[in-house]
């Protein structure tokens, strides 16, 4: 049977009444020991009988056509089995949630590094060498590689909004800032490179891959190959980081599938690190003009965010830069505009917290600038501008603890010690400053199904095709089921990452835990109803703890209620009208202390604090890890991360982890994370909200605001590398 819920109304807090007391506890990941001891088998690590290895061939032009692939140039090389280039090849990965093939074809080249063929050989080394030796002839066309000068620019309707008269409001206001910020292209650079092993059994395809959203990936892969989704099974039990780059089916999966079918043997295609940079989704660069005006009380009268981003021709995705700006602060006169430059660069798509991750870098620094212009404390300015109702649609907010996060953060961090005037604290060569920023990330719920089985021996199993991309899904689902069924967590097993299991929402947009958790919750509610009936009480009276059921004055061990065998129930959650009736988001406050070197302009983050409220916290440990990880990304966005493109042909220059600088241990100080107690009844039946992307949203702005406070240099071009700080420092 299935317990079904459409989220059309706020839900009661059942989980505040259950007895086991494990939900929210900082429990370890059940699969953790496997991962740290190397026993968790990731996609590329499967060794199948008779498996061949494929290596993708990259286009070495930015735009044009492949005229000829000289197979003969490599066919005779040792171990080479095939050179395959097929019209079903993917130009770029599918966008998250597409559920259908992206642009296909291997002849038309749209960006430097696009996969145009796969060379298959007996070993990986042979395939790689042959792929590098393959001679390809192109008909080169002139490419648009610079978003600022691109000849084709779209203005998607959904991203334009004019409310009131922003120009007049800016002119009339006693305090106004009109500033332009830029953010660079970034890469999610997951530790595990993208990899797929394809194996055919007749007309059935099994793909072992590293993917985030299996329900969609299955449909995308089937559509790409022109076969029925019934004939595709994807296995992805462990994913070594995705961050959006593994949302949609990618070229390596399709190439492996086609090659495996052609050769009649399993084929593995693993992307080299350089290919991960060139061929998986990038985060678009942004140029953002922010306009803010405030009255004498510091209340916003105008707010504008106009941005230019870029993508390939034919991609509907555009970075939702202003996503949080729409709901975060008030101001009657509002203007939002977006331009999407069509460029011959690697495809742009979702990278951790699309929208907020870059939009808030600009907005939250501009707010800092406005606070200074208005002579207000930056926290006070933000608190004065928390709107009662959504400033555009007029709908109400669901649980929103922003003010409490700001206050609690200020108290914990010692914000009162900050001098509003920059450059006041010096320790030797180092200038010390404090900065803060709001954290906000829109909350999304996604359709999810899960199956729960309660066994007579007092163990339970929860199954869904949901993935754990390092986020803690195994731990959280197990804990949730343990709580609902009154079992110790060790008695519950979670099985994930297999399309043969009930379709979950996939990992993306921070909706995974709430959506799949709600599905598991619903399945457990169905089982609780069955148990109550068996025991002879109502579901409301039923109390489950440590394998014993009580209700009214009845009491029985679970085994006694399961004499007919296991109880099985599916939960099915569907988003409903609460998504439209409430503005839903997770909130928080970021604080950073930095030291800027007065000689060199180098910045070191000395401490960071994030105070967050994201509804019910399901596992305090995995939630904390998510927030810390997000804040580390904030440090990267603020200080180091930037994909550099050659100005002439647009190719990605820094294609490895030596030159694409993610923060390393020494860049990351002690990071403190605190959660405020919150329940969001409108979000989902378990009252939780998204957390995986909250920690990054705004974090980098706190760092850059701290740089300003430290040394008086306002960097508006992310990342704030030492050369940009240096340019504003006084002579030595």
């Amino acid at each position, binding site marked *: 049977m299935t317990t079904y819920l459409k989220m059309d109304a706020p839900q009661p807090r059942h989980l505040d009444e259950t007895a086991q007391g494990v939900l929210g506890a900082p429990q370890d990941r059940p699969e953790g020991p496997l991962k740290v001891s190397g026993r968790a088998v990731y996609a590329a690590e499967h060794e199948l009988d008779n498996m061949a290895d494929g290596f993708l061939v990259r286009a070495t032009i930015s735009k044009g056509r492949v005229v000829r692939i000289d197979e003969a140039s490599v066919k005779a090389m040792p171990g080479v089995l095939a050179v395959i280039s097929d019209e079903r090849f993917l130009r770029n990965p599918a966008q998250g949630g597409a559920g259908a093939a992206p642009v296909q074809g291997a002849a038309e080249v749209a960006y430097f590094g696009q996969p145009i063929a796969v060379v298959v050989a007996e070993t990986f080394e042979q395939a790689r*060498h042959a792929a590098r030796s393959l001679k390809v002839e192109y008909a080169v066309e002139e490419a648009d590689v610079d978003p600022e000068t691109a000849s084709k620019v779209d203005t998607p309707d959904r991203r334009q909004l004019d409310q009131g008269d922003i120009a007049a409001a800016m002119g009339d206001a006693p305090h106004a800032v009109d500033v332009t910020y830029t953010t660079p292209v970034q890469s999610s650079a997951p530790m595990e490179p993208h990899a797929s092993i394809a194996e055919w059994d007749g007309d059935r395809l099994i793909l072992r891959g590293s993917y985030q959203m299996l329900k969609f990936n299955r449909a995308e892969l089937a559509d790409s190959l022109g076969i029925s989704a019934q004939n595709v099974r994807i296995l992805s039990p462990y994913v070594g980081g995705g961050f959006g780059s593994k949302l949609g089916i990618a070229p390596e999966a399709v190439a492996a599938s086609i090659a495996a079918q052609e050769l009649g043997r399993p084929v593995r295609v693993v992307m080299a690190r350089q290919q991960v940079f060139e061929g998986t989704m990038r985060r678009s660069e942004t140029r953002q003009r922010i306009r803010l005006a405030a009255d004498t009380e510091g209340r916003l009268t105008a707010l504008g965010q106009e941005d230019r981003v870029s993508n390939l021709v034919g991609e509907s995705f555009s970075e939702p830069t202003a996503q949080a700006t729409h709901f975060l602060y008030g101001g009657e006169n509002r203007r939002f505009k977006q331009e999407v430059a069509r460029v011959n660069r690697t495809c742009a798509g979702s990278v951790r917290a699309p929208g907020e991750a870059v939009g808030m870098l600009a907005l939250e620094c501009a707010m800092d600038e406005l606070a200074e212009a208005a002579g207000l404390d930056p926290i006070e300015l933000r608190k004065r501008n928390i709107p009662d109702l959504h400033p555009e649609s007029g709908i109400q907010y669901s649980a929103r603890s922003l003010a409490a996060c700001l206050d609690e953060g200020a108290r914990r961090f010692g914000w009162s010690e900050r001098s509003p005037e920059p450059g006041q604290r010096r320790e030797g060569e180092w200038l010390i400053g404090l900065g803060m920023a709001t954290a906000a990330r829109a909350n999304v719920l996604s359709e999810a199904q899960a199956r729960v089985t309660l066994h007579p021996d007092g163990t339970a199993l929860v199954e869904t095709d949901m993935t754990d991309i390092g986020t803690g899904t195994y731990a959280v689902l197990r804990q949730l089921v343990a709580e609902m069924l009154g079992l110790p967590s060790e008695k519950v097993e979670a099985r994930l990452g297999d399309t043969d299991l009930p379709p979950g929402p996939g990992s993306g947009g921070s909706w995974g835990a709430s959506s799949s958790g709600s599905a598991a919750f619903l399945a457990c509610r169905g089982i609780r109803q069955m148990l109550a009936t068996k025991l002879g009480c109502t579901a409301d009276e039923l109390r489950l703890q440590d394998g014993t059921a009580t209700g009214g004055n009845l009491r029985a061990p679970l085994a006694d209620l399961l004499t007919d065998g296991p109880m099985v129930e599916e939960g099915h959650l569907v988003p409903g009208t609460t998504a439209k009736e409430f503005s839903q988001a997770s909130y928080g406050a970021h604080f950073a202390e930095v030291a800027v070197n007065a000689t*060199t302009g180098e910045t070191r983050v000395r401490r960071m604090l994030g105070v967050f409220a994201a509804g019910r916290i399901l596992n305090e440990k995995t939630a904390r890890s998510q927030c810390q990880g997000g804040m580390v990304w904030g440090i990267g966005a603020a200080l*180091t991360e930037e994909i550099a493109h050659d100005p002439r042909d647009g190719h990605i*220059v820094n294609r490895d982890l030596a030159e694409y600088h993610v923060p390393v241990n020494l860049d990351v100080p002690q990071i403190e994370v605190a959660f405020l107690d919150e329940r969001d009844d409108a979000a989902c039946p378990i009252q939780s909200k998204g957390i995986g992307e909250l920690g990054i949203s705004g974090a980098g702005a706190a760092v850059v605001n701290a740089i300003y406070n430290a040394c008086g240099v306002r960097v508006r071009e992310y990342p704030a590398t030492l050369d940009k700080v*240096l*340019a504003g420092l006084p002579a*030595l």
Partner: protein
Amino acid sequence: MRPFDYIRADAPATATKEAGAGARYIAGGTNLLDLMKLEVMTPERLVDITRLDLRDVERTPEGGLKIGALVTNSDLAAHPDVRRDYPVLSRALLSGATGQLRNKATAGGNLLQRTRCYYFYDPAQPCNKRDPGSGCGAIGGFNRIHAILGASEHCIATHPSDMAVAMRALDAEIEVEGADGAGRRIPIADLHRLPSDTPQDETTLAPGDLITAVILPPPAKNTFQAYRKVRDRASYAFALVSVACVLRMDGDRIGGVALAFGGLAHKPWRDPEVEATLTGESPSDDLFDKAADTLLREAQGQGGNDFKIPLARRTLKAVLREATQTEAAA
């Protein structure tokens, strides 16, 4: 990776005998293997020298130090004599790469590591160093990490080593055994070349030359030694600018100074005129500015690396202030 032959040498003489044109020695492999996977380097034959008996650090009769070519960067940095007598070297080593890499990387390999120029690393790009005559992709391209001193119109790459910069300030000598079995010593100043019109020729070594040791002269007494590295993140990044400094005060005047620079040129950069400007003078900000003027008199930015010019000046001044305990001018 191109298929290659692999030979394991058991003595320097067999190593040099096996190594000829088309062959490469492999030590820690931390640079060579990366470049082979990318097919930037495609040796036909690898001569593994890791079994050679070149792992000792010994005192020389003159009171200096002889560092075997296979001493790892970690071991060298931690060696008590190095820490005591040549702290600039220890600090330079520890500022490089990561703990894992330093455990593998050797003294010989570190000296001969290749540039990190992005265009050199991508066989689809023109690069005179990798593919002579193909052009230089970095000129007119993205050149944040490139040279401001001693570059040519054919190549603007930098030498990435930190260790070598410290060794340059210490006047190290490189002990080499040639293919004919004869040994010789090369001052480190003469080991690396400027790019001129043959950037593919990075050193004065002949094919098959094996570095067997690095010789440090006896330690200078009463010196201030520092290695200051400026980079894009706190660790695990190459130097944008680095300064190795060995300075001796003579009363309130600078008695002697050696300054070597990383991140600026195709080789560890040392300029006798900079040192002459400083020697015998009493330290002041004006003097340090003069030294910086001298250092940078022919500096040329390429656009993306223009910032290295002011950065080198500021870093040099800060190091000299620290070395001479001079307060900043108010």
